[in-house]
């Protein structure tokens, strides 16, 4: 097999796969290298499936809005697979005045960027989603938000890219990126060497170590987030949910099960046994959080829980950027847990960035060299 391609992508998550698909569509040859045995085994398969605009950082919002408008509505059709995209709004719930203040703030920020989001009362929230408890006194409501199935979406990009001739190699751990005559060109794995005109590093938290092999550091740390899933329930509601207090987030999937993400507050201090080991207390904490808002779910059985690592960036937004001192290297990492919803849009933008095309959305806020000391 030919180990050379126009673009070598490291990482087969939603970002890597969406970029691979878009690059292939534009005629580039692409090789995708995945460290794990399974495609999309990192955060792309371990998130709440939110396709949100509300609640995003101002810098990130334009990508999210562009994606919701231009990519998501036709994505299932384009990939010929059901991404289970539901655009039925996002409720971010509050139970205290303190919560409402947080929500008001987020709402104001988003409205400044032109997003149609507004504050609603507890009653109005219950009209949208009648299963909410009386404890909910208000919410922010963005009706163009939604959710999709991150598992099928990530794999649908992979399937389509593979059909279009993108070469995937799983179980292929990258050891280093090597420069040739001043330009990043070789990707050395434990077993092989691959060569590309462009190297796209989209390996989540792993990206830090790999970027380090060409002297680049991105200030990010791993945070373990956990998700739980219930047995299938009768169809109840299709809004994406979150809370001001970040107790949990999630939705009911097309299948009927509820998928909820949550945290215990101790995410930065995890220890593991080599897998994304769940902590013994997080799922319980998430359940308690959920039941305060949705007492009706208290009999729903949890069938599985899992953990995933967020590549938490120092300033909370990703790095999507070429690297000046390492020509040939493009970074797409540090998504801080917001990567899925904007992933399909980022895939398009990366194909534009790599091919030197006009960018559909300005990416200057995501430069790799934006991190400065505080004083």
């Amino acid at each position, binding site marked *: *097999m030919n180990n050379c391609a126009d673009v070598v992508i490291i990482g087969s998550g939603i970002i890597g796969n969406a970029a691979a698909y878009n690059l292939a569509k534009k005629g580039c040859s692409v090789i995708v290298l995945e460290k794990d*045995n*399974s*495609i*999309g*085994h990192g955060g792309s*398969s371990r998130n709440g499936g939110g396709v949100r605009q509300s609640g995003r950082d101002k810098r990130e919002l334009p990508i999210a809005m562009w994606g919701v408008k231009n990519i998501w509505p036709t994505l299932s059709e384009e990939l010929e697979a059901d991404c289970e995209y539901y655009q039925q709004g996002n409720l971010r719930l509050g139970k205290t005045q303190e919560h409402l203040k947080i929500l008001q703030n987020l709402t104001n920020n988003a409205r400044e960027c032109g997003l149609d989001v507004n504050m609603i009362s507890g009653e109005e929230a219950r009209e949208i989603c009648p299963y909410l408890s009386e404890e909910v006194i208000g919410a922010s409501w963005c009706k163009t938000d939604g959710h999709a199935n991150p*598992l*099928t979406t*990530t*794999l649908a990009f*992979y*399937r389509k890219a*593979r059909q279009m001739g993108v*070469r*995937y*190699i*799983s*179980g292929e751990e990258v050891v280093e990126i090597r420069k040739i005559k001043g330009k990043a060109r070789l990707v050395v794995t434990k077993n092989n060497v691959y060569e590309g005109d462009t190297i796209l590093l989209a390996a989540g938290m792993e990206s830090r170590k790999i970027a380090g092999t060409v002297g680049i550091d991105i200030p990010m740390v791993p945070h373990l987030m956990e998700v*739980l899933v*219930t*047995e*299938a329930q009768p169809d109840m509601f299709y809004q994406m949910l979150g809370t001001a207090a970040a107790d949990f987030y999630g939705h009911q999937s097309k*299948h009927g099960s509820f998928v909820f993400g949550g945290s215990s507050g101790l995410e930065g201090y995890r220890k593991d046994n080599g*897998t994304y080991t*769940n902590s013994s*207390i997080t*799922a*319980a*904490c998430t*359940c*308690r959080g*959920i*039941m305060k808002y949705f007492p009706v*779910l*208290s*009999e*729903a*059985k*949890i*069938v*599985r*829980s*899992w953990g995933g690592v967020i590549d938490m960036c120092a300033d909370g937004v990703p790095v999507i950027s070429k690297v000046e001192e390492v020509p040939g290297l493009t970074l797409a990492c540090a998504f801080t847990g917001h990567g899925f919803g904007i992933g399909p849009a980022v895939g398009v933008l990366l194909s534009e960035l790599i091919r030197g095309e006009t960018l559909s959305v300005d990416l200057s806020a995501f430069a790799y060299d934006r991190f400065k000391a505080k004083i």
Partner: protein
Amino acid sequence: MERSIDLGTFVPEPDDDMLICRCEEITKGEIRQAVHDGMFTIEEIRRWLRAGMGLCQGQTCGKLVKGIVAKELKMSPWKIEPATSRAPMRPVEMRIMGNEQLEG
């Protein structure tokens, strides 16, 4: 693992309609097709089709799915990694899950 290997064209088989995953009602044909679509690992099959993601979490069909995937990939089922194990080992109601007792 090289994902661009040629598995030949997908040829329907007479027992493709047979259910394999009883919980999620996934058929043998769907699993075979998924392999041809590039889903080579048990995790990918689970995520793509939901086979083994239902109430019993693959306790009944796990070995069967492995066998089918292995056959399509023309490899030994013993070379195929089973799915990750995750808590809870049995379904647990949310109200019970949230009701922890940490002290004796």
